[in-house]
């Protein structure tokens, strides 16, 4: 899997590069419009992370050129300009996803995985971790081939964990990801604990070989059960 990062901000580029290669992907980078154009002309990639505002031109133009040549590479737009117009025109030009800055690298990695999986399986977004299989489109979860009923929030939490296996997840970050801005003024995390408790019980009852491990004072880690 080869990934091209087109991003002019050095710090951000370095971070993305490090995280993406940690995931086991091969990474190349371009820092401006010209070098990106050259790279795209010479090589093909599995996924392109594309910043819109680049020195020398707009990332949207690169995307347009790519699609005009009939190339179907996966493109995720990463842009500081989270404006409605950019989002719409990016997706209209055939971008596979749009991630407004500032984002968390783990979020980006999850999006890359999802986009690549979709490309590989022809639209099937199902994520498999251990014996758990989760389909974000139909919102179905199966463990060991058997369907498990999940409430909305339980499903959202599981999806979040499934996109970040073996990652430390701060409970505050999890709360924000699942409950959005509702959670930011809460002075406790009881609501997270309650949902996690239910989810754990469901996973346990269905015989999942992956568990949500508590990291004291911090949050959770979605990890395979130690036998």
């Amino acid at each position, binding site marked *: 899997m080869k990934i091209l990062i087109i991003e002019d901000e050095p*710090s951000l580029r370095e971070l993305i590069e490090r995280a993406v290669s940690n995931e086991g992907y091969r990474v190349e980078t371009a820092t401006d419009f010209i070098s990106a154009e050259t790279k795209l002309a010479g090589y093909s990639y599995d996924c392109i992370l594309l910043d819109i505002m680049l020195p020398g031109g707009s990332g949207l133009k690169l995307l347009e050129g790519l699609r005009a040549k009939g190339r179907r590479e996966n493109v995720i737009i990463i842009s500081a300009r989270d404006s409605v117009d950019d989002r719409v025109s990016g997706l209209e030009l055939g971008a596979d996803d749009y991630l407004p800055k500032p984002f968390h690298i783990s979020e980006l990695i999850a999006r890359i995985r999802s986009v690549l999986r979709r490309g590989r399986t022809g639209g099937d977004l199902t994520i498999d971790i251990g014996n758990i299989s989760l389909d974000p489109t139909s919102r179905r979860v199966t463990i060991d081939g058997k369907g498990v009923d999940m409430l909305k929030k339980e499903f959202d939490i599981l999806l979040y964990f499934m996109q970040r296996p073996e990652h430390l997840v701060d409970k505050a970050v999890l709360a924000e990801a699942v409950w*959005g801005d509702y959670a930011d003024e809460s002075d*406790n995390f009881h609501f997270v604990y309650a949902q996690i408790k239910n989810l754990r019980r469901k996973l346990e009852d269905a015989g999942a070989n992956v568990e949500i491990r508590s990291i004291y004072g911090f949050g959770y880690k979605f990890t395979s059960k130690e036998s």
Partner: protein
Amino acid sequence: MRLSQRILLALATTLLPIMALWAMLFYYAMVREINDEADDSLEQYATLIITRCREGRPLPQLNSGSNNSYTIEPISDAEAKPYLRATFHDETFYIPEKRETEPARVMTKAFLNSDNRYLLLKVATPTFEKEDLRETILWWTVILFAVLVVVVIIVATLSIRRTLRPLYALFRWLDGYTPGQKHSNIPNNTDIKELRRLNEAAQSAVERSEELLDRQKQFIGNASHELQTPLAVISNRVEHLINNTKPTAEQLDELVKIDRSLRHSIRLNRTLLQLTRIDSGEVAESTDVDIVELLTEALDNCRDIYGTKGITCTITLPDNLYIYVDEALARMLVMNLTKNAFVHSAPHSHIDISIMGKQLRIANDGNEALDRSRVFDRFYTKSIREGSTGLGLAIVKSICDHYGYDIEYRYVDNRHTFMVTFK
């Protein structure tokens, strides 16, 4: 004091002494003119008497129909001296025929008769009552003054009202003007130079403040935009440290705290950017959005999160309420109002949520009223709590302003009530 009153007062205070002076002059002029006339006729009469007396002809009868009267008495040469020239004066005179005293004009003159002896002739003719004249003039002057005042009041009021119509139009415009909101130009269809100038000055002042406001908004937008990437970079580096460097428990604790503060800054920054976008009209296309559905979702989330507070709710909702609006903004509006009620409610207090017609009403118990004029201001918050951006209600207000919804805050019966009337 109104302009018409001021003009009236100025006119009245100047007119009053002028008219008093005028009345006085008028009085003296009149008296003089009348005395002249009387003196002339007295002279003629005196000449007639003197001529007749010298010629030994009979003198005129006293009650000959005219009101004139005369006396003749001999005087010594010495006594005659001051009267050689005719003197005139006023005096009250007893007229025996009428048996009353009347004011009279009297001419006194000494003359030599045919015997070369001095006689003193006093001729009198009744004249007007000066008192009466003064009174009459005073009255008429007062009447004239009153009439003038009334006329001035009418003319001033009418003409000022008519002339100042453009001024009132300007007032109405200014009253309806809120900086940063859509507005028409100041109407300027008057040919009164000063008022044209005023309108132009007001228009350019409005334009200047609009420009300043725009620049300020842009600055906030730009500043938060520029902050985004560095904030994201720091946050990601912290995450890297957490996930990949096996920190000690103490380090992990510290890193998590850094990350949470950072997330707060990011959220604050993002909200500011959102505010700028809404204020500058950068809003996605509208679709039909069911407010009831959004509200139900918001309530579910709030009950999840603030469930431990034991807050009870009374909810009165119709089946649906479709509003043509950008869904993300509608969700933000409903979320912020609902969350606001839950966050600022004491444990075991009560929240009322209802939709009646197109009005959403959310009420929660409170201790004291918020400042109505500031409650929607950015960062207006009574209690600084961690995680709060202090921008929730400002966002709500911006969204309402953008779509022209009416939003109102009231404090009734110890309850904070927010009401949004959709369009």
